[in-house]
């Protein structure tokens, strides 16, 4: 039995030890917001938070996450109130097909924490810090605008 805490809820799962965190979330917990773009840590679509840090869930084994707090896009909003980044993504049209979107938002949410102590945050620095999250639709300028909107 693998014990996972996801979005504040505890789960006990009977998992093949090879199961990645991403597959556990998607196939066993029905949390399909995190996407499998590459399954190799190359695209960022599967980004979730583990103990508050951004993690590529396709590269993490589910069994190794016991005792940690996992958060997915489904856990980001507070009830019906969207997270400011989610709102900003809508307002800035920071998405097209939406396949990268959960990963972009989770990555951006962690980024905001990473840079909290910094007074200045340049566009170049945001771009660099977001470059692990590919968007084939090319929503990058709007994603940057959305992050800027939240981190004014």
């Amino acid at each position, binding site marked *: 039995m693998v014990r996972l805490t996801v979005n504040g809820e505890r789960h006990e799962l009977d998992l093949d030890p090879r199961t990645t965190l991403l597959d556990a979330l998607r196939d066993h917990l029905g949390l399909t917001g995190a996407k499998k773009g590459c399954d190799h840590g190359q695209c960022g679509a599967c980004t979730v938070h583990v103990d508050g840090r951004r993690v590529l869930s396709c590269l993490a084994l589910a069994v190794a996450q016991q005792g940690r707090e996992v958060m997915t896009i489904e856990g980001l909003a507070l009830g019906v109130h969207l997270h400011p980044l989610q709102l900003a993504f809508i307002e800035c049209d920071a998405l097209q097909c939406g396949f990268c979107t959960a990963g972009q938002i989770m990555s951006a949410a962690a980024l905001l924490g990473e840079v909290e102590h910094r007074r200045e945050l340049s566009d170049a620095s945001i771009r*660099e810090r977001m470059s692990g999250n590919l968007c084939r639709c090319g929503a990058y300028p709007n994603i940057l605008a959305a992050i800027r909107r939240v981190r004014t």
Partner: protein
Amino acid sequence: MSTTSPRIGGFADRIDARSKVTGQARYAADVVLPGLAHAALVGSTIASGRVLGVDTARAEQAGGVLLVLTHLNRGPLGDLPNGDGDGLTADPRPPLADDRVHYRGQIVAMVVAESPEEAAHAASLVDVRYEPAPFVVDIDDADATRLADAPRRGDCAAALRAAPVTLDVVYSTPIQHPCPLEPHAAVAHWVDHDLVVHDTTQWVRGDQAVLARAFGLPRERVRVHAPFVGGSFGAKVFTAAHVLLAAVAARRLQRPVKAVLRSSEVLTAVGPRAATRQRIQLAAERDGRLLALRHHTRSHCATDRGVADLDPFYEPTSGVTRMLYACPHYEAVHDVVPLHLAKPGWMRAPGEATGLWALEGALDELACALHLDPLALRLRNHSSRDAHTGKPHASEHLRECYEQGAERFGWARRDLRPRSMRDGDAWLGWGMATATYPGNRDPASVSVRLDRERGRIHATVSTAGADLGTGMYTMLAVVVADALDLPLEWITVELGDTRLPPCPVTGGSNLTASTAPAARAACVQLRRRLLAFRRAPDESADWHELLSRAGLDQVEAVGTTDAVHDDARAHHSFGAVFVEVRVAPELGRIRVTRVVGVYDVGQVVDATTTRSQLIGGIVFGIGQALLEQLVHDPMHGLPVHADLAGYLLPTHADVPEIDVDWLEDVPDLAFNTIGCRGVGEIGITGVAPAIASAVHHAIGVRLRDLPLTPDRLLAALADASARPERAK
């Protein structure tokens, strides 16, 4: 929440955005059904030859394995259709049809197991013995076949001989891949004896036609869903082999089966944009007026004779070079080179993105040779008609695009001389190019239904077409909101389902141009029907009230659009794209630092999603120019980097501020009742040549082979300094 109704051309919020930012939008691979089994594919490890035998014993004994399909036990499947309107497959032979192998990575077996882990493991245990045959994967190594279609006007050869100025250059493009972020995925299951498939596809009806033929079913017994598609860019037109095999396995097992491609499989087995070698010969007057243009393209196709005979899909580079500029003498020839690779397919602006790379590059060279401003050269050769057919453009505002783009960019300050702008260790350069894409429209129908609901009206708009991220949901909602004065919140749009009114493939930037007029036509019918119940002609239209007076809870109308048949006029979108690059010659590094694009796309339906589409197209152009290439190992015939760490896509850090705009009040009303042409593809066109021209302007080195990688730039710089007289 606003309750005002948006207007055509305004900025609406994307109506499906909330479902996407919360992770609720369901894509094909997200579908989970009771008893779902998982498939894993086995790709050939030779590029050409035969399968001598497949030993499936170890795979079959592995834990959780339910089925191993090979060509020996796949069972009967009907022949597949391969014509427009009827669905398309990359290979007219059904998958696992026989023992022949045409490319490395071709599916030779599929394993189905209880879990994805078990399926993947068992797939590694399938032991395939081959008889390899010689193969070729390099377009420069193989013999070409000339296509019969060779458009021409005037006498190109004579004009090239006699002209005061000529230019003869070869531009190349590598194999590039649309590579949507969502890998191909399908879930197939049989309900009674009907087939239901959740697929990621640009064309649910295409899938339906292919599957119906394969399984000998009437079409209405095949249902295909694609409510959300994670990008496509041409990659999801063909009904792919794994979709058919998932349906075979699901029937055999009487369970739903999910097949998801790995990104290596997408890059190997899903057709890419064909490689091209394009020779451009130009003849011109000294003032820059074009006299002749000869365009000789070599592009690759599949080797499989069946495929080549039926449909030698080639990159249609000359479609754009023949029509764009006034030029009395023109000739295009096209050679195809069969290679042992997956059959090429479409990628955003097939033909335009590649053809303009060559043509616009050559024009920049001509401008340099004549000491002309590249923009002035374009204006000198501007054509207000399709230069080949002679048909006048119904609505053409390219000059205004040039003018406004140049103004926004500050083009007038450009010094003609290369190496005229330095910033620290780097050189800056400015380049520009023309963008264009044809207006396409296909037969489509859209239904609009009004329901009386809890004291107000609710509209449901439905059509089978898919939203690939293109903004279809929002566009249709805006059209209906505008036509019926409804707030967006009162409108639901249903897409991507074969049960909905018929709609063409989402491709060729056609879907808005096809469905928006149909949606409006449906609204016009509804208005007419309901307005008959007004008590006085000036009574304001309250649909809820009128519906109840009519004694109805619900009213529905279907609007249609037909195909374009305009013998008198041509329909094209245009644009002008301006680029600034920053080149670090020591590192060979090129960064795009600024892009301005101004477009004439007719009437914009929704500004938000149009802007995103144009920006997305430009980002694709940056990838085309600087990063993307699929290189095949000549020893083994496989891509040397079939993953997203090797096939480089533009990242956040590669993309600068992009300033896009479009001309207002230029509806192409001869094209459709709204006057809109599509915007999905024009954005990529012109970007790569503008970048290469900017690189030349920065450092005086001409690069003619995509992508413009550091090694190529460094080699060109070394070459130029070894032969300084050639470095202009």
